């Protein structure tokens, strides 16, 4: 199937999708604007526009609750205690993460309750035990790897310099 054949179909689907989303939101009235979501990544960047290039206005920790204002192209406009802005939808979840592993690191002596209540706490403590048991030789590089981070502006510059441009211009 060529591109010409693919594109209109995709648009039809997303438009249909939008309609159905809206309908379901009206019916449930719990989702969409006003819905409470949780940050499901370690540090979500709250930006002042729906783009990875938009300036960061705040960083939201894992488990932070936000309220949905609106959604657009995979981005969610939210209101958080730290302020308003846009977060990519993949950084948010409707599930409650308030009992998740990360939280308990701030609570003293809570390790047992964390394991019991989440019942599935594959957390840092389990990792530490696992490292002891297996020797954990590979972790040195895993920790180094986790530091490999490039800012979005540099990524975009890399693509631009290489003449990597999607048809219809950069997005």
């Amino acid at each position, binding site marked *: 199937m060529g591109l010409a054949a693919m594109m209109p179909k*995709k648009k039809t689907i997303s438009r249909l999708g939008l309609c159905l989303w809206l309908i379901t939101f009206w019916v449930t009235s719990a*989702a969409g604007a006003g819905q409470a979501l949780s940050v499901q990544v370690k540090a979500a960047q709250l930006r002042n526009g729906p783009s990875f290039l938009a300036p960061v206005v705040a960083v939201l920790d894992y488990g932070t609750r936000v309220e949905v204002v609106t959604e657009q192209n995979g981005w969610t406009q939210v209101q958080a205690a730290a302020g308003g802005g846009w977060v990519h939808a993949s950084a948010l979840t409707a599930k409650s993460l308030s009992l998740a592993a990360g939280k308990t690191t701030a609570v003293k002596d*809570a390790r047992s*309750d964390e394991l019991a209540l989440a019942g599935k706490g594959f957390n*840092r403590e389990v990792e530490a035990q696992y490292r002891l048991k297996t020797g954990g030789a*590979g972790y040195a590089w895993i920790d180094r790897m986790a530091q490999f981070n490039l800012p979005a502006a540099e990524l975009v510059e890399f693509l631009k310099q290489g003449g990597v441009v999607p048809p219809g211009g950069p997005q």
Partner: protein
Amino acid sequence: MKQDRRRFLGMATRMALAAVGANAFGVLLGGCKTMEVATQVGTAVGTATGVISGDQAESIQKAGKAVARSFEDFTPEQEYTIGRAVGAQLLERYPPYDSPALNTYLNTLGQALALASDMPETFNGYHFLALDSDQINAFAAPGGMVFVTRGLLRCCRSEDAAAAVLAHEIGHVQHRHGMQAIEKSRITEALSTVAAEGAKSLGGAQLAQLTRIFEGTIADITATLVNAGYSRAFESQADQAAVTIMARVGYDGSALVDMLEQMKGRLAPGGLDFAKTHPSPQSRIDEVRPKIRPASGPIPEIRRQRFARVMASV
């Protein structure tokens, strides 16, 4: 595209169910409450007493059962912890290739591609590392740790082909294929047994048991990545994701076919690498070719040059 539609239909169905069945919502809320009770119980026990009433033990068990379903019940943070351990295991089998220039290049390219994926955000982001091995192979650990051998990089004749390799691995992360390699029984064991066990003896014994289950979980995923390979359907999904991501960013999707052709010529039959864990390159080419958009023109000189510079060390 089919994938999009299926996902959308699944979503619409879920939403419709939520709309029709207020009951279902009630059950969900009930589940949360149970969890809260368990929290309090656990906290009380954890802080001091060590004694627990029958009712409370039941609450903990319920909490365990309430969440004992599928890989999707793992939080993104747990998925990341699993991914780190899988990565550590892979690094015991395949030494890293410590080339700052190459690894910076792979991370720049890979993270740029990830931004255009359907899941640009994971718990701790996407990270890429070259492996010092002549085997033709690549691995995506849950959460976004991606490993590519020098052998596979040598199958790439352009930056666009390298982009195809990384985008394919991002596809595995985005579809959470690694997490789906965890044995169902292991998940149930992790969630319910541990919760029940917790009522009797919290602390060291429970941590030890959870660590054993964690070990099993890592073994499930590592065995799939290294020995068994994913299903043909998963590989096809990852190829589709690669083509989609490349088109969004502006790379030439046909470079995926070029890379597969190169691989076809280099794979040793019966080898321990891609040949063992992946569908044949030709079958992947036949399946993915119709989905690829035509190239918009030749690769610019500057892109060729920077790729050649980096590949000099590969």
